[in-house]
């Protein structure tokens, strides 16, 4: 009887221990996960200025081959981002605050980003990442984070339904505070992949 009772208590204790272990482990895991994101963001926020080279491939349903452009990106904290395409032609996209100015050899377009979130969402998500503003990213996206500080992956899914009509997801890969790859999938499944190198 007694041993039987003890058995019950033991089993209960074992379960209790197991349960706490589980909870503790999960919490520890989560903390580790959160701390990784926080560390990456912290690293980004320390960087006030960066310049990188990029090579972008745009895959569009109506094109046989992707459009390939390359050039460099310049970021100045907190909100200035410029993308200069140099090959095969010169095009500049500059964001300054709320304004996006696009210049080609023949035309200049000025776009207010607040009015056209579908244009701005990609660039602002890059700005938010580069300035380490995780809160801003969380406001706009459901975020999935994978990996460690030295090799991480972010998957950003737009929360806004209007933007989801244009953009399916944005993926970003990196190593510490170096962004190495950006993948954008549009709602119509057109997508682009940007490889980033030569961080300086």
């Amino acid at each position, binding site marked *: 009887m007694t041993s039987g009772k003890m058995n019950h208590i033991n089993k209960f204790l074992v379960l209790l221990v197991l349960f706490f272990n589980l909870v503790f482990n999960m919490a520890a895991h989560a903390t580790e996960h959160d701390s990784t994101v926080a560390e990456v963001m912290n690293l980004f926020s320390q960087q006030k200025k960066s310049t990188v080279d990029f090579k972008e491939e*745009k895959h*569009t*349903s*109506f*094109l*046989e*081959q*992707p*459009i390939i*452009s390359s050039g460099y990106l310049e970021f100045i904290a907190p909100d200035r981002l410029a993308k200069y*395409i140099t090959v095969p*032609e010169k*095009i500049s*996209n500059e964001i300054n605050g709320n*304004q996006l100015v*696009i210049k*080609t050899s*023949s035309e200049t*377009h*000025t*776009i*207010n980003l*607040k*009015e*056209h979130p*579908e*244009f701005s969402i*990609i660039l602002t998500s890059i700005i938010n990442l580069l300035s380490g503003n995780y809160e801003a990213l969380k406001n706009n996206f459901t975020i999935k984070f994978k990996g460690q500080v030295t090799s991480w992956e972010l998957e950003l899914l737009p929360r806004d339904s209007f933007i989801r009509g*244009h953009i399916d997801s944005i993926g970003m890969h990196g190593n510490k505070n170096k962004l190495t790859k950006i993948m954008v999938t549009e709602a119509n499944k057109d997508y682009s992949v940007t490889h980033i190198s030569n961080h300086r």
Partner: protein
Amino acid sequence: MQNNQRTSLIAHITWLSFLLASLVYLFSSLHVVSDISQFMPDDHKNKDVQLLLDELQQGSTARLLIIRLSGDDTLKLASISKQLRATLEKNTHIGLVHNGQKVLNLQQLINNEYKLLFNYRYLLSENTAFTKEALSASLKQRLTELRTGITLFKNTLATDPQNHFSRFLYRLQERAKNTHLHGVWFDKDKASALLLVELNLKNFDLDHQQQALNEINHAIDPLTKNKNITVDISGTASMAVQTRSAIQSTTKWLSGTALILMSLLFWWSYRSAHLFFIAMLPLASAIIAALAITNIIFNQVHGIIIAFGITLLGVCIDYPVHLFSHHTKSRDPQQTILSIWPTLRLGVITTALAYLAMLGTGFTGLSQLAVFAISGLIISLLVTRWIVPAWLRLNFNKQEHPYLKHLSILTFSAKSRLVSAIAVIAFCFLIINANLTSMWSENISDLSPVPAKAKLLDQELRHSIGAPEVNHVFLIKDHDTERLLQRTESMVTRLNVLKQNKQVNNIFSVTDFIPSKQTQRLYQQQLPQRNELVTNLNTVTASLPFKKYFFTPFIDDVSASKDLNPISVAEFYETPLAKHIQQDLFFKENNWISIVRLSGVHDEAALLSWIDTEASIKPHYLNLRQATSSLMSDYQQTALSRLLLGSLIIGLILLMVRPLKRMGIILLPVVLAVLLSISIQVLLGTQLNLFHILALLLIVGIGLDYSLFFDRKWTSLEDYQHRLHGIFISASSTLITFGILGFSDIPVLAALGQTVSYGVLGCFVLTLLFNIKREKA
């Protein structure tokens, strides 16, 4: 006595039934018009000017409002401009709102209301981009856009790879050459943001315009709350609403103040405020009758005539005043009226006949005014004669006025009279002579009842938003729209020389948007055959990454366009672009009218001499500013010459009943007062317009009245004092009402008020000077 009562009863019954009949008629048939063109001559040599003026005031342009935001930093202003546009466009009373933002949701447009235009795109503008080189350039440009990340044209790429349609739409923006800042329109100084709002009102009456304006203000308020931002709104609707409220407030203010002051005046002079209301009987009857009679004769009454005519009839209040002043306790009012009747009658008849001179000028406004004034004057005379005496209580207490004693012993020597007359004439001659060329207004807008401030703001805003220039236009009329468009096109072709020679910046024509069917067929012929297009595209795309058959929708559309029936004006009018061309193509008075406008004329003289050599173009040319100013001066000259003719009539009538010298003494103070009134206005820098001239007629009427009453032989010192009193009260009451009017916000009423005030003051002083103490009977 019995007889008198019967006569009075018959008079009252006739009077009341006449008033009742007039009121019933007015309620059912009064047709008030307010177009400035209806105030213009019936068969003026340049009817086109009127037509254009009318269209500018009543046509589609009248539905536009301009909003200006200023005061804060430009970024904030731009952002408010955008928010305001978004808010206003949700309002059903508001059509499109333009603030310079580019139409970026092209796909959405094409799916909806622009579908028809999109289908016709290759018929609406030239098709010159179908060569291999042009196609290649277009497609490479689209690839560049893809590279930049602008996905704007991605959805129309397969159907319209040349952006043919969006380039067509952007012509609209070319028309408004506005400065852009932060993506929206700003004025040239880049200090204030500008928006253009189209009202979309089914019922365009004042109440609905007011409501729409209130809604706009409600939309603006939360956006500018707690910010240091000034919002100005202008446009025809806004001016109309402001004019109405200015008129309402003037009326309230005028009638309130005048009522109090006049009651006080009547109390002071007759110790009876109720006499004032009796004095109103002739005036009120005159207004009602004059309105009815004018409406019967012309089938309509112009708003300006109503406002102006009513004030002109203000003289009618003088008639009962003379009666009251001559009346004494001891007399039957009938006796009193009989004693002054010949003088009253002569005054009214001569003034009425003077107004006859305004008839038959071809200027509808003058004719209406003449009829209004003549009928009003005669009715008020009749009411004063047969109605007022019965209302005059026998026991009314006439106040002894010490001032009359002083006035009645006043005398002037013949020498001082002569010197004063010469001094007045010299003063007037000097002033008028020095300002002879500049004293007349040539601006037609001076005739409009819009408050001066609102008019100024409107000019300023129109100028800053680059509203269509109307100074150099070409007007073409035709019954047939197709022929009209063809004629417009050949005119534009001819005018293009000016653009090539850089004499003008731009030429705007409706054919920029809807070419004639003939031209549309020409554009169709420019389109390549299907095979040719396929071959060209294949060659071009061979070196480009586009998928095979991707441009099949484009090829299909181009081939389908070759078989389309050209779009008609009627069909085009169903599209959203109709709003933009309504000021260039409209139907009026059984004709379709097309207006071609020049903008940025560098050298007006060179342009005019070029037009002189172009026989096919010259007859269509209208210089609105020049034409309206010549119209204005015609109008003024006619009115002025008729005024002189009227004065001549008065002189002749007087000559029939008075000897020449007496006539001279009666007329001299009136003529001098008129001259003085003009000179004072000119001295104060006012530019005289039609209304000033018409106001002179009123002065003539009033002054003549004073003169005639002085001219009447007097029976006793008391009788003499009565007449002095009557004239003094008449002059004071006129000065009170017109003095108040002189402060009105409405330029027309202010002009009238000031002119009459100076004139009446002049009349009073001068008649006193020249007529005082004539011999006893």
